[in-house]
């Protein structure tokens, strides 16, 4: 007799747990969607978000603070930064002529930003870089607009 009671009790218990599970999904039926419709609405990145690096420019003159001291190039574990510069005759400090960041191998570890003594490089807030060609991710930081395919808004 006990077996029969257990038999029906287990069925009843099983049905009850199924109903409780369905009640949970039913309650979620009326709650609003939590997803963001990406192409139409975009998310706002937090201030400390780490996008591809960019040069900090002086307010008025628009010249980058970088003095081509190569500290960031040496600190980078995956050797993605290539900097060249020369000293103009009149001026007293070097000016960068080429500043290439190979974003395909950059692992966003932040060592370049930390090792820069002249506060010349920081992380940008760009997060939707998209392109079909690898070359578009070799970013030229001196004239950022030049990057063709990568649509960095």
């Amino acid at each position: 007799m006990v077996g029969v009671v257990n038999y029906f009790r287990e069925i009843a218990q099983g049905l009850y747990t199924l109903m409780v599970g369905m009640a949970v999904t039913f309650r979620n039926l009326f709650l609003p969607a939590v997803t963001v419709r990406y192409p139409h609405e975009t998310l706002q990145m937090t201030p400390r978000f780490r996008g591809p690096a960019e040069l900090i420019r002086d307010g008025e003159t628009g010249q980058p603070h970088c003095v081509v001291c190569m500290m960031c190039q040496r600190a980078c574990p995956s050797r993605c930064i290539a900097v060249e510069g020369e000293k103009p005759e009149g001026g007293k400090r070097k000016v960068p002529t080429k500043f290439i960041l190979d974003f395909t191998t950059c692992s966003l570890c932040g060592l370049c930003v930390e090792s820069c003594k002249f506060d010349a490089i920081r992380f940008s807030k760009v997060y939707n870089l998209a392109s079909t060609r690898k070359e578009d991710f070799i970013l030229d930081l001196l004239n950022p607009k030049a990057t063709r395919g990568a649509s960095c808004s």
Partner: protein
Amino acid sequence: MSVDATTIQGETFVVNMGPQHPATHGVLRIKLTMDGEYIMNAEPVIGYSHRMQEKMAENRTYSQYFANIGRIDYVGAMIYNFGYACAVERLAGIPVPERAEYIRVITSELNRIASHLLWFGPFIIDLGGLTPLLYAFDDREGILNLLESVSGARLTFSYFRFGGVCNDIDDDFVAGCRAFISRMRERLTLYRRLVTDNIIFRKRVEGIGVIPPEICRKYGATGPVLRGSGVAYDVRKDEPYSIYPLLDFDIPVFGECDSMARYRVRMEEMNQSLRMIEQALDKLPSGPFMAEKVPRILKPPKGDCYFNVEGARGSFGIRIVSDGTEIPYRLKLRTPCFANLSLFEEASRGMLLADSLALLGSLDLCIPDVDR
């Protein structure tokens, strides 16, 4: 319901589960020799996402290697940063200020909850339930936003530095954590009602994938797999590091050794992590978040040391052999998933195909963690 190998006759056929298969999260191939739906022998073939992390460590300075450590088990990257930072601090003898220890524990426990949520979703999908994943990822998003606001990255945080953390946490991070904790507790009851009590789920996992403690000991399995087999070993309690001795939390241990026990260990661990974060937030001291004089190029003294930390999947150990220069002489990574997967061959003999998925899912593997 497993049949041992001797009673199976008839000709067997070999099926390749993987390397591209919905149930192997990551690139893992398992050669199954099967008789009908019973598995005679399951041999995991690994190495598809092998990147030679240990060789990379031998041509990078200590601080340059931080980016790699987060990419070994990218689901629990903060805890791996914790392990590496503490290993080098133990080797080089760098003191860590009080506030940095608290920040490290808070962010690591948040990352452990995110890692368990990312295990919970795909595990239920392996068993056929498609909705719990969306709820779990909704909660996980809350954690990722918190950690992104403090460290800048969402998955592979390179947030720790030798001697502390790279930037401080502010008040709205603390407020965000408290709001998350209260919301998460009520969400855990939702998961209990939707999945844990569900009779179909119970029938799918109870008594399936039994791993006796003896096999765990022979294969060196650690973490929730070990605690699901009745052995109360947790690195945070048995070899305490950082400020875990000051926090009051207990270790969930279930003795049934089956997939359900491992499931309940992880769900209970989320609760414990919430408790720990709450206590750490209450006792958060003010003060520096980074040790003052840490040399830019670190040259630890000659010698070797071993440090292990309780990762989301088991005890993650690092053995660093230093020869005095700024580049480590040898860096051995003892990863938990490597050991947990090695027992799959013995544990899944004679099981059904569908049940072996429940076992594989309950081991919570992260394949790059296996291959390194």
